[in-house]
C-alpha cells in the first residue's frame, strides 16, 4: 500500500492571521488531485511560534509528515510532497 503523506496546517491564531486562513482553502482544492495519498488536516496550534517572540514573522507554519515548513505557500507544500524538499 502506498504511504499516506499528512499535511497539517496550523490554525493557531498567529498562523491564521498571518495567512493560514486563506492558505487552508487553497490547499484543500489544490491537493485534491492526490486523492487518498495526501491527508490534509487543519490542526490547533502546533506551538512552533510560541518558542520565541518573533517567530510569528515566519508564520504560517505547515507540517508535511515530520518536516516543518515556515512561511508556507501552496508551492512550497507541493514541492515538499512531490520532491521531498
Amino acid at each position: 500500500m502506498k504511504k499516506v503523506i499528512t499535511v497539517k496546517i496550523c490554525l493557531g491564531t498567529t498562523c491564521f492571521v498571518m495567512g493560514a486562513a486563506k492558505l487552508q482553502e487553497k490547499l484543500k482544492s489544490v491537493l485534491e488531485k492526490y486523492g487518498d495519498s495526501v491527508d490534509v488536516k487543519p490542526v490547533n496550534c502546533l506551538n512552533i511560534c510560541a518558542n520565541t517572540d518573533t517567530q510569528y514573522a515566519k508564520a504560517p507554519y505547515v507540517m508535511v509528515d515530520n518536516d516543518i515548513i515556515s512561511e508556507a505557500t501552496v508551492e512550497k507544500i507541493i514541492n515538499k510532497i512531490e520532491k521531498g524538499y
Partner: protein
Amino acid sequence: MKTLNQASKLKKEVLIRLVQAFLTDNFEQKINDIPFDMRPKGSEIPFRCCIYKEREIIRERVIAGLGFEVGQDDEKTLLSEYAKKTIERENFKPSTMMTVLDTACTACSHSKIVVTELCKGCIAKACQSACKFNAIQIIDKKTVIDNSKCKKCKMCISACPYNAIAKISAPCEDVCPVDAIGKDEKGITKINFDKCILCGKCIASCPFAAVHERSQIIDILKEIKNKKKVIAMVAPAIVGQFPGTFFQLKSAIKQIGFYDVVEVAQGADVTIQNEAKEFEHKMNSGQPFMTSSCCAGYLRLVENTLPDLKPFVSDTKTPLYYTAEIVKEKYPDCVAVFISPCISKKYESCKNDKVNYALNFEELGAIFVAKQIDVLNCQPDTDNNENITPHARKFPIAGGVFKAVSNSVKNIEAKPVIINNLDKKNIALLSSFAKNKKCPTGNLVEVMCCQGGCINGNATISTTNSAIKKIEELVSKDESENS
C-alpha cells in the same frame, strides 16, 4: 478582497512589532529599534536596493501605524518623537483614512497601452480593426496608439498575432473605480480624497504595499492601559475571521482588556425594522425604488460622484449607528471602539461622535499575535446574548440586507437588485438609475462596496466561503438553542 499575501504580511508584522513595543516599559526606545530589528546589520535585503531603504520604508510603515500622514514626514523626526505625540494626543481621529508611503511607492507610470518593438508592421493590421475608438494609426508601417483616444479596452492586445502590444500597469490606478488616483511630478501616487470612496482596493492591490491605513491601534491600547471602560463593538462580519467559535473570540477580545464586547448585529436588527417601514412608506407614496444605506463606501460614492441618487438612498441609519447609541446609553462614560472589516467603516466611525475609535480585523489580529492570545485556548464567553436574529447575522453577506429587509416588509412585494462590488460597471449602472429616476429590474436595491459583501472587506482575514460557513453554523446554533 484579493490581497497580495507577502505584502499584507509585511504590514501585519510591522503592526505586531508596534504593539509589542507599546506593551514594553520602554515604548519610545523600542519603537526606534523596529526598523533595525526587522532588518538587522548584515541581514538579507529582501525587496529594495539596500538595507537603508528597507529600514526607511519600515520606519514609514510605523509612522502610518501610529496614524500619521507619511507625506508630511520630514525623514529626520525619530519614531520615538512620533510615539511621544501619539501617547500625548487625545481623541485622535485621522483627517484622511489612508496615506501613501512616498519611499515605498515605486512610481509606476500611468496605466497605458503600448506597442512594443515586437510589432512587425504586418499587412493584416488586426489591432487597427479591433480598436473601437479609432485610437490606432499606422505610422511608418508600425502601429501607434493615440493615448487621448485609447480607452484601455485591450482589444488590440488580444488581436495582435505577435503579442506585440502590452499594457503598462499602475495597479492602484487600475483598481480604483472612481479615478481618484493620480501621480505627482515625481510619479508618486496621490489619492484625491474628494473622489475616493474608501473601497480599500488600492490598499489591497499595491504590490509594494505602499498604501497604508492610518491606524488608531495605539490610541486604543492606550485607553485600555489607562483603565478606561473600552467597549468593543464587533461588526457581524467578524464571525469566521478568526479560528475557534464566535464565543471564544468574544472572550479573546476581553483578554486584550476590552470591558465588554457588543455585537453590531444588534443594531442591524434595528436597521432592518426601520428600513422595512421606510421602504413600505416610500413605495406607497410613489417612489420608484430605494437603495440600502448601510455601506459607508457606497454612501461616499453617492456623496462624491452620484448626488442625483441621494433621494433614492434610504434614510435609515446604519447598524453601527444604532449600536453606538445602545452602547453609550448602557455605558455613558465608555470609550466605544468599532471592530471593522474595512476602511470605509472606519471613516464612518470617524464621523460619528458616539464612536471613539475603529480597529480593523487585521489590526485586532496583530494585537492577538503580539499579546500571544490564542482564540482556540479561550473559554467561550456567552454573556449578554442579545437574541440576535438570523437575518442580522447574515447582514454582511451579499444579498443579506435585501433578504432581511424584504422579510420584514408586510404589504408590498420587494423585488431585489443586488449590487455587490462597486466597480466601474456597477457604478455606471447606479448612475443610470439616478439619471432615469428608475430602476428597471426591481425596487429594493442592496448596494455593497465589496464583492460578496462585508465578509470580503479590505481588512478581512478569511475567505468568503469559510466566513459564510461559520456564519451559517452560528445561526443554526442560535436556532437550535431557541427552539
